[in-house]
């Protein structure tokens, strides 16, 4: 039974590829349906091929506004969470201090908490304080839930860093500030970048916490949510497809560049 044997040896590969297909199927549908010309207000059934939406991606009222708002929030949330999170990571790895356990749990808990719980409790706070819901409350919430992820990413990197590197810098006439800027920071940079990237993705794509704390402000995920009730414009698929392609292309080109650079050097 050579075929059965062949199948047996490749069972993992086949199962894995099927899972990959499951993961990618919605993206394929999103892409295909970005070329649809739906009959009604909803874009769930294939009608006929059209590039109208691609020619006029901002043709839907408020959509591109919400997109730019989401990008702004994601940018500032990334900056805030990365700075605060990096500081915490360094304190955790490099210093001994009291209340380390409490600090660690306070960082772990937001990641172990269902979003809806954080969303609801934060809203309670804002309502109690009489805060005006909008850009600032969204930003506060996003920095809050991105923070823990930045700490995790940066901490891992700083922990794996050889403490002798900093000693070597101090031995070679670099003062504390110079040591940090010339050695510590550049070496921790990949971890910080990973944390920042994760923050950006989390913030940009967040719906549940934003939905609770946005008031009448509409971010891009909220726009999509609203359109699922009122009617889904094809442009949503255009944005989704474009972001997927941009992401894949960026990653691929950066990989090609590093590959080439390594080849040149070797």
């Amino acid at each position, binding site marked *: 039974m050579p075929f059965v044997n062949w199948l047996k040896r490749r069972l993992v590969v086949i199962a894995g590829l099927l899972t990959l297909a499951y*993961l990618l199927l*919605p993206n394929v549908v999103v892409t295909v349906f970005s070329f649809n010309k739906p009959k009604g207000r909803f874009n769930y059934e294939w009608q006929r091929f059209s590039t109208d939406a691609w020619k006029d991606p901002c043709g839907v009222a408020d959509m591109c506004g919400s997109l730019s708002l989401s990008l702004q929030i994601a940018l500032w949330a990334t900056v805030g969470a990365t700075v605060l999170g990096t500081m915490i990571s360094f304190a955790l790895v490099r210093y001994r201090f009291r209340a380390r356990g409490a600090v660690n749990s306070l960082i772990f808990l937001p990641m172990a908490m269902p979003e809806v719980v954080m969303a609801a409790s934060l809203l309670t706070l804002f309502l109690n304080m009489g805060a005006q819901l909008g850009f600032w409350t969204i930003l506060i919430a996003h920095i809050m839930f991105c923070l823990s992820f930045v700490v995790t990413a940066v901490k891992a990197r700083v922990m794996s860093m050889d403490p002798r590197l900093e000693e070597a810098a101090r031995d070679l006439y670099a003062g504390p500030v110079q040591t940090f800027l010339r050695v510590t920071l550049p070496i921790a940079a990949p971890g910080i970048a990973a944390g920042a990237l994760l923050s950006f993705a989390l913030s940009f794509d967040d*719906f549940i916490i934003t939905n609770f704390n946005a008031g009448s402000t509409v971010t891009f995920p909220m726009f999509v949510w609203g359109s699922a009730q009122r009617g889904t414009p094809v442009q949503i698929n255009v944005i989704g497809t474009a972001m997927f392609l941009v992401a894949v292309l960026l990653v691929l080109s950066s990989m090609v560049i590093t590959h080439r650079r390594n080849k040149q050097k070797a």
Partner: protein
Amino acid sequence: MSTLTEAPPPLAPATPEKKPARRRGRFTPYWLLLPGMLWLIVFFALPMIYQASTSVQQGSLEEGYKVTWHFATYWDALAAYWPQFLRSVSYAAAATVLCLLLGYPLAYLIAFRAGRWKNLIMILVIAPFFTSFLIRTLAWKTILADNGVVVHTLNSLHLLDLTNWLGWTAGDRVLATPLAVVCGLTYNFLPFMILPLYTSLERIDGRLHEAAGDLYARPWTTFRKVTFPLSMPGVVSGTLLTFIPAAGDYVNAELLGSTDTRMIGNVIQTQFLRILDYPTAAALSFILMAAILAMVTLYIRRSGTEDLV
């Protein structure tokens, strides 16, 4: 060797100060921690306390709320919404198991069998994140549509009869049924299972497989006795990262389900944002939090040490 005989530039004069670095550095960790921790205390911990207090308040929007230690809210909320609680837990559990079953082969494939395709597959696992998850979830409406390929196939294989009988689907539909919601949950949280699994699989020394084979273990035995136990950290963090958000999710139930598939997240959202019954919403959210923390603690304890193998 001329460079070595040149006199080095003079260094800073030696004024023996008493332990300057130490004294300056004593408070450094606290300064580093302060802003971030303050942020988490004010916007994460404090709200939890506010929420706890809200849950035992009585009153109305117009007249304001007062703390009356009205714990009956908890019993009323549980009595009214226990089916949604149960549903949340069972849907999340089902999705977690499915994620593990689907995710493990892919994580294994990336870690051991992908060769030069490794990076590409990795990118393909992560890249969907860049399309808003709401858009991707909406795509499932098309995939599972009543007249779509999936429903048609299931129907002709008479699998729908089976799922109808199990109560997973109703009529000739998949959309607006528990199956669709679990399918959506599984899809949405699958990467959170795959990535930690991959991380812990990748750390396993490939020679261990050879050693197991050398010691008369068949591939399946090798997997059961060596690979799987060693990947346990990934399994634990993967299941947690899948179960917790799935239990609190209301997006999939809303977009792919019906009123019969409402989960506890839907109830909390409605109570908070539409009905504006804050005490009930706060109580529900508190119960959800407590339940999940309790389950997670229990799970970590059990899978922590000796029960890993």
